[in-house]
């Protein structure tokens, strides 16, 4: 197995909400290995983007408070770096594709100038080389008219084109760690397939490790090696994708998989939403946060927080946080 390039221990983030301080990311620990694509999946609002922002050192203060035992990127502990050193690390060693491209692209500069600037800074190419590399990167993510795109401003591109510009920009830096936050939501499925192929190629050619945040379980199956399932700021299951899809053990994972609509030529399938709502992050229930929506919940679940542990014995890389996981006999209802 490849060595870990990113290793996170007990990362927590709290933010101020209308109902008081809320811990939206709760003691997250995981590692990411060279060349690996690790999926991060979970319900809207469960803390995926905030986790990404915390890893990048981009959580706005004082709105958010970040604590962590360590965030090791290679041999650097990002928790201990000052803002200036962090800025050097960002972009070259760890870079990010933001969920909403408009937040990341500058409206007053052309795409060409934004892309070339990044490429010149991180690859040390001259102006001419950088423009050539920019065009090449745009073509790799399936953009025709690369020369027109270079001269365009962000508002002159379609949603999916802006998203691909950002992907091209992040890939051009050839970082050791790439955090991709819902990178293909604005893409049609054929373009998406091409972009996912390019991302995995990045891992193969440069050993880039990718944290792929997505709500699309089809994308997880297609592109990821392992995945983390997150619920209310905590990891509830961590597994290689085969195990995740064939033998999920956490009831929330099972619920998510059951809610995936499948295109079947025969009949439209009505899928089942998981009953109930995600609790408010400032008013989380004691014990297991999923208890109010879980068919297997009992009194133990409502008092005792389940810890993340190996599914079958000490060495398993399949882990879950549940008192009554699906592989074990169902508990009294």
């Amino acid at each position: 197995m490849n060595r870990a390039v990113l290793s996170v221990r007990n990362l927590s983030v709290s933010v101020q909400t209308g109902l008081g301080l809320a811990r939206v990311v709760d003691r997250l620990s995981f590692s990411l290995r060279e060349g690996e694509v690790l999926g991060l999946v979970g319900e809207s609002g469960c803390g995926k983007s905030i986790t990404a922002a915390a890893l990048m050192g981009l959580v706005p203060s004082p709105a958010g408070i970040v604590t962590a035992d360590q965030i090791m990127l290679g041999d650097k502990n990002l928790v201990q770096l000052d803002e200036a050193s962090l800025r050097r690390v960002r972009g070259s060693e760890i870079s990010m594709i933001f969920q909403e491209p408009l937040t990341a692209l500058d409206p007053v500069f052309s795409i060409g100038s934004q892309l070339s600037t990044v490429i010149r800074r991180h690859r040390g190419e001259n102006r001419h080389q950088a423009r050539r590399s920019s065009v090449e990167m745009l073509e790799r993510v399936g953009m025709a008219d690369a020369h027109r795109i270079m001269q365009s401003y962000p508002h002159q591109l379609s949603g999916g084109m802006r998203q691909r510009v950002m992907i091209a920009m992040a890939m051009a830096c050839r970082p050791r760690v790439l955090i991709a936050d819902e990178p293909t939501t604005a893409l049609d499925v054929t373009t998406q397939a091409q972009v996912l192929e390019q991302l995995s190629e990045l891992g193969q050619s440069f050993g880039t490790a990718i944290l792929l945040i997505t709500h699309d379980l089809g994308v997880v199956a297609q592109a990821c090696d392992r995945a983390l399932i997150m619920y209310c700021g905590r990891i509830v299951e961590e597994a290689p994708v085969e195990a995740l899809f064939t033998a999920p053990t956490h009831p929330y994972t099972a619920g998510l998989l059951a809610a995936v609509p499948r295109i079947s030529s025969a009949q439209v399938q009505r899928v089942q939403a998981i009953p109930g709502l995600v609790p408010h992050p400032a008013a989380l229930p004691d014990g297991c946060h999923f208890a109010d929506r879980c068919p297997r919940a009992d009194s133990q679940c409502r008092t005792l927080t389940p810890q993340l542990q190996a599914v079958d014995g000490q060495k398993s890389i399949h882990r879950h946080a549940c008192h009554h996981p699906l592989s074990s006999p169902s508990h009294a209802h």
Partner: protein
Amino acid sequence: MHTNPPLLSVRDLVVKYRVKGGRGGLLTAVNGVSFDIHAGSIFGLVGESGSGKTSLAHSIMQLVQPCAGEVLFHGENLAHMKQASLQKTRRNIQLVFQDPLASLSPRRSIAQTLIEPLDHFRIDVAGKRHARACRALETVGLEPDVLQRFPHELSSGQRQRVALARALLPEPELIIADEAVSSLDVSVQARIIELILDLRQNLGIAFLFIAHDLAVIQQLADRVGVMYLGKMIEIAPAHRLFRQAAHPYTRALLEAVPVPDPAHANPVVLQGEPPSALTPPAGCVFHTRCPQVMEQCRVLEPLDTQINEPGLKNTAHHVWCHLWKE
């Protein structure tokens, strides 16, 4: 079946943008598109990224001026409408923008964003508007405390749902939803799908629903249009499109849907050059990538062809491809 004029009728719509280079500095984003939406029905619109879906939506709303063609709402041309009736129509057609962050004002709380249009259109008495906004948030799975927050204090999926709630509040006749569920996980998405089907059923709201997620389209749409490089290339009843797609591009799309099963082979990426919108291919716009391309496809533009089959209404299924002859 339908004796009334369609709720929305789009006729030969053309949208062009001025850009650097290209033919006379113009880029044709929408190239002669026509379709109808009847009251209480859901028209799904899918297509390649950059094929002109958002441009089409914006030109229906008159946010960009079409350079040819017309948009009729209840049979009335929106471009010729007087200010007063346009104002009234604005309430009856709501647009959910593809980019919620760009459409929600950063300095306004969600309460201001949601309640202001109600004030503006004088919907409900002032005292009840707050409660109405709370209910709208609840239907999209958000808690009332969201009202006090600002857009940047929400997750992307939460913002997307606020944008949807805002469009629902005035109870319009037509909602144009541009990728309105793209950031939502499957569970929340299932809830929103139920909500939309419910609104159609009980309030008769019609939708132009633009989405890349074909599973969502399959669950929602009555009819589906497929766009490629500014052109509509197929229109069919949803149940037929997913079973008997006629156009090679539509079939390529359906085959590329990722399957939630790691044992399943990854989809094949479309071969060939993606075409340029500035200098679109002659003949069929898909011919540079079509696995079934023929000689005539490179020179001759395919015309609107209706598929005739026993049991199929002869206006139901349209395709623009030389493989199909009447």
